[in-house]
């Protein structure tokens, strides 16, 4: 039961990541391959503030999200200038840079040793330690993320985002400031990814750079593709299915030296098969080319 709840908490954290990435890549059509970098920044900010300054995780979570949003501006800047696979490569490169800073800035992040003993959340002095407490917290943030992003994409602002994806020159011709829209999308997406990273850090109570590799960004992207671009429900389904599915391998009693690469192989194969056979994902309707 504990284990099942744990899987649900992890799936909930991934829901925040997939829905926020879907805003960037699905709705606006900007290929961002460095989403894990934002959650890395959020996780490290919140953890370091809690460990070194004794700041409450609630405040740290918010500051972490804001710092991730600031880094979203840094990533959004190339997005204004580059397109398609060049942008994918640039965001990918920024993902590697953030990962390698987390790994090499040993005096701050303790590098590959990671940060142990990150405090959990507390409410009115009462320490939250049960897993279901965290399930409620994560579910709350899932709700906020889905609510905010749903409002964004169903607003006039969201229609401009779709028009940027379909034909940027046409939306420029209609007097829309596409660069500003792209930048805002990156800021919002990065903010939620930063929150997700903070939640992860305070839940697991230990983080190290290996949780935020570029491979992690690809897994988040796979979840978005699996559920379907431009489908928030799809992103939720994608996150849950692709977190739960590899856990099945454990029930066959596989040692982790086999289960770990097998899990990655499933992800790789799924990515290729989806792109060739069903690019709109299981729930989406939008066929991207």
């Amino acid at each position, binding site marked *: 039961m504990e284990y099942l709840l744990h899987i649900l908490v992890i799936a909930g954290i991934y829901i925040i990541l997939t829905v926020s990435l879907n805003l960037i890549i699905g709705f606006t059509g900007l*290929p961002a391959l460095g989403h894990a970098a934002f959650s890395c920044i959020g996780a490290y900010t919140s953890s370091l503030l809690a460990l070194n300054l004794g700041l409450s995780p609630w405040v740290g979570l918010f500051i972490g999200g804001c710092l991730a949003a600031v880094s979203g501006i840094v990533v959004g800047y190339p997005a204004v200038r580059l397109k398609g*696979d060049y942008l994918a*490569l640039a965001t990918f*490169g920024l993902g*590697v840079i953030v990962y390698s800073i987390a790994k090499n800035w040993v005096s701050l992040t303790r590098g590959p040793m990671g940060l142990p003993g990150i405090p959990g959340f507390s409410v009115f002095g009462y320490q939250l330690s049960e897993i279901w407490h965290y399930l409620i917290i994560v579910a709350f943030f899932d709700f906020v993320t889905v609510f905010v992003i749903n409002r964004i994409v169903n607003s006039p602002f969201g229609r401009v985002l779709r028009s940027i994806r379909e034909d940027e020159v046409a939306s420029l011709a209609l007097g829309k400031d596409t660069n500003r829209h792209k930048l805002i999308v990156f800021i919002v997406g990065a903010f939620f990814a930063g929150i997700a990273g903070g939640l992860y850090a305070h839940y697991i109570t230990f983080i190290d750079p290996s949780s935020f590799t570029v*491979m992690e960004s*690809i897994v988040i992207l796979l979840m978005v593709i699996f559920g379907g671009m431009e489908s928030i429900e799809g992103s939720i389904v994608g996150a849950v299915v692709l977190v739960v599915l590899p856990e099945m391998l454990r029930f066959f009693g596989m040692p982790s030296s086999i289960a770990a690469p097998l899990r990655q192989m499933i992800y*790789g194969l799924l990515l290729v098969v989806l792109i060739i056979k069903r690019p709109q994902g299981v729930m989406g309707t939008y066929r991207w080319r």
Partner: protein
Amino acid sequence: MLWQLIINGAIAGSIYALIALGFTIIYRTVKFFHLAHGVVYTAGAYLAYTVVRYQLSVAGDQVSVLGWMIAIFVGIFGSTILGVLIDRLVYYPLRKRNASNLIFLLASFGVFIFIQNLIQLIYGAQILTIRTGPVKEGRHFFGAVITDVQILILVVSVVLMVLLWVFIQKTKLGKAMRAVSDDPVAANVVGINPEKIIFISFAIGSALAGVAGILISFETNIEPTMGFNAILKGIIASIVGGIGSIPGAVLGGFFLGLVENLGIWGIQAGWKDTIAFVILIIFLLLRPWGLLGTRTERETI
């Protein structure tokens, strides 16, 4: 110290240049980022390793010169087949559908993850070595040390670069490849089958990746994740040199190797990757057409 860093940079640079060359040969005809090129490189090294280990288990502690030749041949041939297979099974259906470059990039990422983890499943995640004898002391050269293997790497890569240049510039097939690269439709009109040229590009490019993988396995150890860094450096080298340009790939490779190795003069070696990617971002933003490339429509907006 400076000389040593320059030599290390040149060796790393020649490996980067080989990978970038293979990548560029493929890029020129298909115009997308073939990331799975990195795993073709890994596969070459592992195939050669398997053949060497097999001979050791059969014939004791020595591998004959012929045995090494067979191992190298199997490695190169295996990577060639793998590269062509990836094209046929994954890229061909996408090409039929007229998919965007981004779709190709993501598909090749999937192939990369799949094969890398397949290798890890078979051989395990640990570091392996292909070398059999004790490590020989290197030669001294202006106060720096260079080993025989490193000289081999430099010589082989320079020879291959020259051969490839001659092939592309002087032969009829090379001319056809340049034609498809410049304008696939017009090339088709004058009777060049683009699918055939794509096939040949994947074969040559993947063979080069195999050579690079085998060379690096003589110099250092091999591990399943080695292809990831290699292809990223190869792509960075190609972009720095000018994407699609063959001299650019060579120049970019050596440039990247030297800057990485000279850059760590003052700071720790762990920052090498950061240096490489900062160079990539700078080039993507300020000069996306690279050092030797020409500015085109695609790169300007």
